[in-house]
């Protein structure tokens, strides 16, 4: 093993350890508002890892993951508010529905490559809010009014308040899903996914069942989005068609690219970006006076361009490049 590879693995392990320590310290040291934000970051991170499995590793672009996020959110909300299911049953059930939906959507996706697939999934994102407010589903979805969900209460023995509890739940889900994703991409399946992305025909001649891998990748990716959506429904305590607009799907793609394609760890940075940069842009624009209310969009855009200029392969790519350079210098 080359020394720079060893260093890279070491840095990656240190990074994950640091992330876990920070995450475990969070519920003790943060107040409700910051914990809510931290929970949002974990939720986005789960969705981004899912999208990255599909887009980064398997090369299928999806602009419609907001729709799977919505199925997870509404599914969990309906199961908990209409059927009284606890969250630990509602979220896995709702995300299984997402897996099926994603798997089925994977079939038409087989026929559509590149930009055409991007457009088809884009349609999914556009349609989701309208389908959610469709009158035929009112009895289930609450129509345009949305659905309220009772706040999660922590079991008494934990002595946690609701904000801490939902954070712990999201953290556990994120840890499990990160572990699953790392095992997926580091093994035979990951190599098959990447091989299909890089050269589909060559992969098939090597005996990879491209159709099965691609549809399953879609299903697993949708499942991740569904878990994130379900957690989000419980964290916010409310779902409505406006919660899952087009902007959400686009934010996911931005997050994946900023974090770094084909990187599980990069999702943390992508999630931090889509959670905090819009707020930061809003605050920065206030420096320009009250009439500058149109500025946040422009500042957000400039920051995005700047990051893409500095780190074209995302934050994860930048980190990897820095580690390589450092190891070469030390030799």
């Amino acid at each position, binding site marked *: 093993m080359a020394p720079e590879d060893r260093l890279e693995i070491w840095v990656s392990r240190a990074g994950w350890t640091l992330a876990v320590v920070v995450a475990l310290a969070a519920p003790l040291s943060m107040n*409700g*508002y910051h914990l*809510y934000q931290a929970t949002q970051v974990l939720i986005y991170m789960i969705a981004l890892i899912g999208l990255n499995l599909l887009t980064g590793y398997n090369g299928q672009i999806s602009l419609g993951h907001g729709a799977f996020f919505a199925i997870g959110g509404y599914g969990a909300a309906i199961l908990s508010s209409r059927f009284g299911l606890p969250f630990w049953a509602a979220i896995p059930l709702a995300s299984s529905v997402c897996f099926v939906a994603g798997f089925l959507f994977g079939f038409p996706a087989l026929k559509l490559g590149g930009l055409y697939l991007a457009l088809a999934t884009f349609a999914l994102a556009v349609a989701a809010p309208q389908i959610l407010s469709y009158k035929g589903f009112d009895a289930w979805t609450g129509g345009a009014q949305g659905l309220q969900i009772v706040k999660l209460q922590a079991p008494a023995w934990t002595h946690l308040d609701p904000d801490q509890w939902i954070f712990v739940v999201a953290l556990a889900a994120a840890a499990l899903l990160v572990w699953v994703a790392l095992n997926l991409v580091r093994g035979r399946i990951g190599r098959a996914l990447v091989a299909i992305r890089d050269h589909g025909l060559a992969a098939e001649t090597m005996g990879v069942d491209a159709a099965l891998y691609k549809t399953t990748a879609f299903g697993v990716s949708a499942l991740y989005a569904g878990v994130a959506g379900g957690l989000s429904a419980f964290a916010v305590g409310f779902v409505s068609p*406006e919660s899952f607009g087009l902007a959400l799907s686009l934010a996911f793609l931005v997050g994946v690219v900023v974090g770094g394609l084909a990187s599980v760890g990069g999702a943390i940075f992508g999630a931090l970006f889509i959670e905090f940069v*819009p707020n930061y842009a809003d605050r920065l624009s206030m420096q320009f006076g009250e*009439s500058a209310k*149109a500025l946040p969009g422009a500042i957000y855009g400039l920051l995005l361009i700047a990051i893409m200029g500095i780190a074209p392969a995302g934050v994860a790519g930048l980190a990897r490049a820095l580690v390589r350079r450092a190891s070469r210098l030390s030799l």
Partner: protein
Amino acid sequence: MTTRRTFLKTGAAAATILAAGGLRARAENAPGITATEIKIGQTMPYSGPASAYGVIGKVETAYFKMLNEQGGINGRKLNLISLDDGYSPPKAVEQVRRLVEQEGVAFFFNTLGTPSNAAIRQYLNDAKIPQLFVSTGSSLFADPAHFKWTVGYNPSYVTEAHIFAKHILTTKPGAKIALLYQNDGFGKDYQSGLKAALGANASQIVGEASYETSEPTVDSQVVTLQGSGADVLVIAATPKWAAQAIRKSYDLGWDATRYVSNVSISIATVLKPAGLEKSKGVITGNYGKDVTDPKFKDDAGVAQWKAFCDKYLSGSEFADLNASYGFSAAQTMAQAIKQCGDDLSRDNILAQATNIKDLALPMLLPGITLNTSPTNYNPIRQLQLSRFNGESWELFGALLTD
């Protein structure tokens, strides 16, 4: 030595002191109130699909700035912290929590949008933080029995439907009514409001048709409604579909009295596309002054609004109905704060916001006044009917009260 028991005892004692402090704090001023400042929170869709409403927050911020230059209210300056929620409920929850837990605002004012307000309502009511004069016409937000801390502002769609029903019953008893409505919260408020106000006469509704905002036209719905034999058509539709319904009903030669919802009264975006000649005779209910109406050319209230726009805004807001709405809402808020005097506890802020009596405002139509009470969370319950004469809206008849 600290044993587990003494530790618990100290904890219990501390908790008692905290609780007692909490009780005493009730009569004290709310968080965010100092001797010189009142901190107010707000979320607005400055970005996203509803960003056209962002101007409301801008006008309100500017209005409070003007008050501050004049010395504030009862010696305190108003600090409105207005944050972007992009019309997304999860973002609205996040921003509201920031405003409560980080900025420490005393209360919320005119937060915009049905979904955002629905998402934050439970949190604010649990924490007993006033959510005042919310910017939506949904009937959800005037429910003092369940959500004591949430007070409405816009005349609700239900109010509007009630008033139309009253007018139909008095001017055309025995009328056969057809209703076209948008299939969402807005349209359904209208449907239920109309039926409730008709009461025993609800059977006079001979035809109902709904449409989805994804449908390209409502022509077939209008044809169906004409077939029901109705002689009154109530159009509870947003601009694009209202224009289609107005035009189609005219083209069919259907001689019905047409009522159109207040959200679709813009001459530029509804009546011109429908055809000005074809729009003649359409009736609506109104409460604000339209500055393009020649009748208000020399109106004192409009002059005041114009002067404010020129000095504190870019001037382009003058003809924007959303902007003048923000002007009125900010004045309503200022009135409630004025009434609070020196007692700025959250209880008293809510008490005063629900104790507004006969407040007339420069940009509301003459005769329209705002009233609230602990059981009435809909400040605007009057509308002035007006009829389109082919050029402009003509006010007619007396003010109607719900």
